[in-house]
Every structure is written in C-alpha cells, then in structure tokens.
C-alpha cells in the first residue's frame, strides 16, 4: 500500500488539479451550507472529506454533480467550469457518484443497473434499435461485456445468477457494491463516494476499504470519499479535508488532520457540547 500510495501522492502534488472548487458558496435561504470553499482533487488521488453532521459534505457532492446550484464561486473540472450544467452533463464530463442512502434502480436487474449507467458513453439512438443495425448490436454487446467486467471486479458477488436478479433482492453490502459498480460504468475520471461503508460490519467495511484503493490503482479513478469511519479514512486517504459549518477548517494527511486542535474542537465541541 505504501509504495503506490506514496507515488500517487507525489503525482498528486505535482499534476494539474482534476477538480477544483473556487470559493464555492451555497446558500439555502439564509443558511450557508457551504461558505467560500476552495479545494482541489488531483488525478489519481484519494481525498477524504470529513466533518460533523451538517458540515456540508453531501452538499459539496450535490454541488459538484449539479444537483444543487452554486450561489457563488466556481467548480472547475479538467480546466472547464461545471457551473450551469445539468447533472447528466456533469456525469458525461467524467464525474460519477454514489448516494448516502443507497439508491439503486431496485426493480431492474443487477446487470441492467450497470448497463443503463453507460448511457452517456454510448451513442446508438432509437433508429439503430429499430433497424437492428450492426452498430447497434455491436454496441449492445460492448455494453454488456463492460458491465460484466465491472461486476466481476467485485469478485463473485454480483455475477452468475445474481446478475439477472432484481437489485432489491441484494443484501445491503451488495447494494453498496452495485452502486459503486454503477458509478464505475459511467466511465468517470473522478468518483464521489458518499459514506461507502456506512451501516456495514467491520469485515465488509475492511473489504470495501481495500476496494477503494483498488479502484484507484487498477482503474485509475480519482476518488473523493465522504466518510465518518476514521479507520477507513486513515486507511484510504492521500489527503483529508475537514469541513465544519460549510467551511474548510483543516486539510492535510490523516495524521496532521487528526491532531489538528480545530478539528478536535469541531468534533467534540468547546466543552459545552454545542454542535
């Protein structure tokens, strides 16, 4: 782990930023969900975003994926601003996400879940399907092949007979896995994982943690993780960003952040137990 980690960290220091938020602010009514947030992700980097509840972590994801609109500031991905795009356009630029509360297409089969997520990477339109053209058939085969390849990334869990089962029959952990598989299928450069191990037992959690590393190493995605489990954060992150009340209060590697007094204060409060 350390070898690749270090190498990646070096690359991250030197390469151009993949994603950058510039003084990003988001207001809901009078509430500042994010305030002047500036932060960046480099290619091949795994960044953890932590912070107490209500710190604006998920809002950050929503802002990046254009589910909420930025009030001020800018979000730049690969040198181009993401502002004003629709969520699907953001996804086709190369950012995929998972959801805090797993949201699968519950009645579609596991395979279909992954196949449908390649929508923005495929081109065949209705006429291809109607005329059953060669290009259409080739593309369908490709979609399917890629889907099966992605699913086999998770070992035997999502392949075999399970591939054709509706997603709602999956166990909780497998649903999480399928969500990641779905994000992978959009062929992103950057994956945003929203609490990927929430609700899992330690064994599953450890396994998934390993998976996050492999995602970067084997597939080359940059990854941003929101996570509460500090063990996981420690394990996976190249860099940790701490948010509180929509502001960045600390940034750095895990050790540095963990000992930052402001972070400790944010989590534990100033003695009076205020949140």
């Amino acid at each position, binding site marked *: 782990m350390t070898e690749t980690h270090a190498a990646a960290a070096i690359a991250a220091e030197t390469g151009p930023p993949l994603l950058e938020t510039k003084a990003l602010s988001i207001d809901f009514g009078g509430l500042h969900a994010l305030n002047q947030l500036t932060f960046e992700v480099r290619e091949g980097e795994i960044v953890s975003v932590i912070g107490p509840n209500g710190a604006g972590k998920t809002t950050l994801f929503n802002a990046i994926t254009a589910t909420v609109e930025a009030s001020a500031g800018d979000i730049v991905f690969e040198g181009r601003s993401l502002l004003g795009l629709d969520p699907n356009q953001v996804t086709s630029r190369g950012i995929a996400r998972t959801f805090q509360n797993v949201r699968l297409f519950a009645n579609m089969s596991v395979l279909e879940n992954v196949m*449908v997520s390649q929508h923005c990477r495929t081109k065949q339109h209705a006429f291809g399907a109607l005329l059953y053209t060669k290009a259409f058939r080739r593309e369908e085969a490709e979609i399917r092949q890629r889907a099966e390849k992605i699913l086999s990334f998770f070992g035997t869990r999502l392949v075999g007979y399970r591939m054709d089962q509706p997603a709602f029959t999956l166990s909780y952990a497998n649903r999480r896995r399928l969500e990641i598989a779905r994000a992978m299928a959009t062929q992103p450069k950057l994956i945003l994982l929203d609490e990927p191990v929430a609700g899992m037992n330690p064994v599953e959690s450890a396994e998934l943690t390993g998976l996050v590393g492999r995602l970067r190493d084997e597939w080359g995605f940059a990854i941003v993780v929101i996570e509460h489990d500090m063990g996981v954060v420690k394990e996976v992150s190249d860099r940790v960003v701490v948010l509180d009340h929509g502001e960045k209060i600390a940034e750095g590697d895990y050790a540095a952040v963990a000992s930052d007094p402001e972070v400790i204060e944010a989590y534990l409060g100033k003695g009076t137990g205020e949140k």
Partner: protein
Amino acid sequence: MTDTASPLVPGEAKALLAPPRPALSHDWRRIVRIGSIAALGQAFIALSNMPVRLDERLIVKPVLSLGYLVLLFLPLAVGYRQGHQTVREGVPVFRPGLNEVVGGFSCGLIAGGGLAVLAVLLANFDLREPLVNWSPILLDLLAFGNQAWFAAVIWLAIGAGMGTVGGVLRLLGPTSRRAVVTMAIAVAGAAVLESLVVDLAEGMGLEALTDRLYDRRGGVNWNSALGLAGVCGILAVAGRGRLRQARSRHAELQGAKRTQANAGLMALAAATLIVLPLFAGKLTNELLANVGLFVLLALGLNVVVGLAGILDLGYVAFFAVGSYSTAVLTAATSPRIAPEMPWLVALIVVVIITGLAGLFIGAPVIRMRGDYLAIVTLGFGEIIRLLFLSDWLSGWFGGSQGITMIPAADIFGLTEVSGTDPRRVFYLVLVFCALAIYVSWRLERSRMGRAWMAVREDETVAEAMGINTVNVKLLAFVVGAVLGSFSGAIFAAKVGSVFPASFLILVSIVILVVVIFGGMGNIVGVIAGAAVLIGVLGGPKQPGLLIEFSEFKLLIYGALLIWMMLARPEGLMPSVRRTRELHQQEMAQDAWLRGEVDDDGGGNRPAGPPVATQS
C-alpha cells in the same frame, strides 16, 4: 420508491396464527357484513335498471335471461366468498364442512333480503322522483308477474338457495369445482357470445352446429345447454392439470428452446389472427378492427406510461391530431387546404405532424412532477379538442361540422380500406399493430428502453448516472405520439369522417384503463386488455360484444378498474418487472425462502437454482 407496506397485514397474521375454528361456529359478524353488502349491491343493481334491460337477452331459452342471471350471481358469489377465511395460501385452516353450507345459506338469505325489501318498498312507496327506475316494470320483473309479497318470499328463497349452492361449491374438491365452474361459464359464455359464435360458425360452414346450439332468436336452448355443460364438464375434468403442466413446462424451458417455443406461439397467434378474419363475418371483423385500433393506441400509451412511467392523461390528443391531419390531407372537402393526398403519402406527413405535436406538448410538461404532468397533459388533450371544435379554426378543421367524405385508404393501389369492409380495416390495423409491437419490443430492449426504466425507477439517480432524462422522456412521448397517430389515420379512413366529439377525455382514460387492465409494460397484456375490454364491453364510442351492457359500460369500467387495482394491480397479464414493483416485499421473501437472496455475508450462500427472470 419507498415501501411502507409491512410484509404481513396484521389481520392476516392473526388468521394464520389463530387456532382452527371448530366445525360449526360462525363468524356471524362477517356473514352479516358480507351479506348486507351483497344486499345493497343487489338493490343497486335492481335500481340501476340492469335486470330490466338485460331481460331482453336470453341465456337459456325459456328459463333464464341475462337480467335474472345478474341478480342470481351476487348471492352465489357471497355464498362462496363467506367461507374465504378458512383457506389461507391454499392451506385449509380447518376441514370445511356443514359450516360452509350454513354460512352460505345465511349469507345468501341476507343478500336475497335486499331484493325482498326492495320489492315490498316498490309496491308501497313511490320514490320515482329521484330514482328513475323505481317503476312497476321492475316490480313486475322481481315478482315474476305476481304480487310484491311473492317477490319478497321468492327472493329470500332464491338468495338462500344460491348462497347454499355457493357454500356447497366450496365443499367440492378442486376438480369437481373446476368442472362446475367451467360448465357454468361455458353455458353463460356461449349464450352471451352468441352473435360472435354464430358469425364465426357461418364463416366456417358450421351453421348446423350453431343451429342446434342456439334457439333461433337468442339464447342457448335447454337441451343444448345441458349438452354443452356436459361436454365442458368432461373436458374440464379430463383436461385437469394438463394446462398447468404445459405452462410449467414452458416456464422451465431455457435459452434457445424457450425462444423457439415463444416464436412458435407467436407464429401460431399471428397465423390465427391472419386467417380468422377470412372466416368471420362483418360483425367479428368490425369488433376485431375496433379492438385493433385500441390495441394500437394502447401500445402507444404503453410506451409512454408503461415503459417511461409518464402518466399521460391527454393521449387522445395524438389520436385527434393523427385523425384530423389525415382528414385534412386526404379529404377533398376539408375547408381550407385540400391537397387530396393518397392515404399512404398523407401518413408520412401525419407522422411528422404528430411527432412535432408530441415535442410541442412534451417539452413543457416533461420536467413536471408525475401528478402535475397528468393534469397538464389532460389539459392539453382538452385544449386540442377545443381547438378542433372551435369556430375560430373552423376554416381549417370544420369546427363542429367536422370533416366528412374522407376517402378510403388506398394501399399501393392493391386495395382500398374503408369502413364498409371491416376485414380490410382489420388487416391494415394488424400491420400497424405488428409495427407498433416491433417498435416497442425493440426499443424496450435497447439502450433507450433501459434509460426509460431507469427514469421510471428514480429520475434523480438516472440523471446522476448520465442519462439526459428530458431527452429520453421526450423520445418516449414522441414515439407514443407517432404510434397514436397511426391509429388516428386508420380511424379517419375507416369512419370516413372526423368530428371533435370522437376525441373526448374519456378516450384517453379508456386507453389508460386498457393498458392498466391488461398489464402495464407488457405487450401481450395490453393486447389482452384491449381484447377483453373493447371487444367484450366496448370502447368509448364502439359497442362491444355485450351490446346490452352499453348503458352500463362505463359503470362496469369503473367498478372493474377499482376491483382490478385492489385485487390485482399488476393487471391481467403483468410484466415481470411491474409485478416486481408492486410485490417487491413478497418476492423478496419468496426469494429468501428459496435461498436466492444473499445474506449480509455477501454471497456466501450456495447458489440456488437460477430463476427465470426474463421479462
């Protein structure tokens, strides 16, 4: 979609856990409740004039008319139904016995009481002011021409009798019960479908058979009723289980074999549809043509509602646009422009026009939430009808005088299709149905179809997964519009005239009912739904086989829709996916019981037998 329904309704759990009841204890409250509901139902049916109206139609020549059959059915049904609680999931909680008979008797008695009371009231009070059917004719019917007291006694007796029969029916073994039910359905069916059967028999040269079966003017005669019942009873007993075997054998088929079997079935069905009209007379062909038009509409709406999950209540707009543009383009009498195109050429233009109309209506509504979308599409449907109707645009569309003298559809100079020959209309419809089936089948299994499914499941996530939901939904809207326009174009050529009155909101709703009733998202289901509803009951402006029911058509539609939603929301022939949506809980449990769901360990269980999840 969140599931709030608990897996077991509390009542059910109680019933499962409760100790078996002793053989002769009655749940009197239940019996009284069911009985009184039936009594009210009987009174309602009687006051709705249904028996009087249906008395014209004989079922068994001298003995039984459809009017009385309607009244006899309810006590029988509740007599059977009241014992329902004793059977759970096919497992009898206790041995059925005398209990059923006594229960059925009491239930039927109460149900019959409804008519008895009504008869007495009819004789003594005049409530004709609000209730138009409160008439001597009704009393006469109820009393079999005698005094009111006679009616009271006889209906109590009939109710009790039918209820007892219902109870006894429950005591029978499954085989004999099936035989009895088959016999009853066969006789009633043969009588009700008389015109169709005769029509077909004439085409096939089997008049001798129908002459024997039916009395010359309506109704099965007594002897043939017995004979028919006997034959069907024997068939039912002999064929017991065969059908199910065949079905399960079909379900077990895998891969290529299954495909072959399906293709074979499909070819068989298609061959029947192609050959049948050649033997059928005008009546059958007209019915088939009407059913076909609605199948076409329903297939179009199925793309919109069933596949993409957009609840379009204004679908009739596209039917209207299709009809009107065909009329304007082909008819010489259309007011302002009359290019008098041949039908096929016009069709191309019509497709373009309706596609644009789909875009125009679709664009503003596509981002709206489900229910808003429903009401707004409904509004659009009505706006379009009003525009066609309006004096303002009557210079273009004829206003309330419509456009008449629309020429027959000329098909490559081979043949001309118009309403005078319903057989040709049917073949034309068949071709377009095949096209519509192909389109929806192909699209469903493509990238677009998957995107529609995803949008239906969870729009936000679909968008986050890179699907341009607006475009995808618009496409569904346009495909639906174009399929609807085919129906409109054929309709214009068939009827030979278009009036705004053919495009009421009602039509949209009937098409929706067809889709839902048949089984949303399933092509075969949609076809079956149209055949049953439009063919048997009739469409909004089309009589079905049961012309006697035309007054009660919409009433029955309403009741059927409610019942269907309560009892079988996935429709007559559900699509696998739709069933999943509606019965997620149960299916998950079943899968768990079969060991097919992974536990939280994540797939450590040995893989069970693969399930057929083809959809």
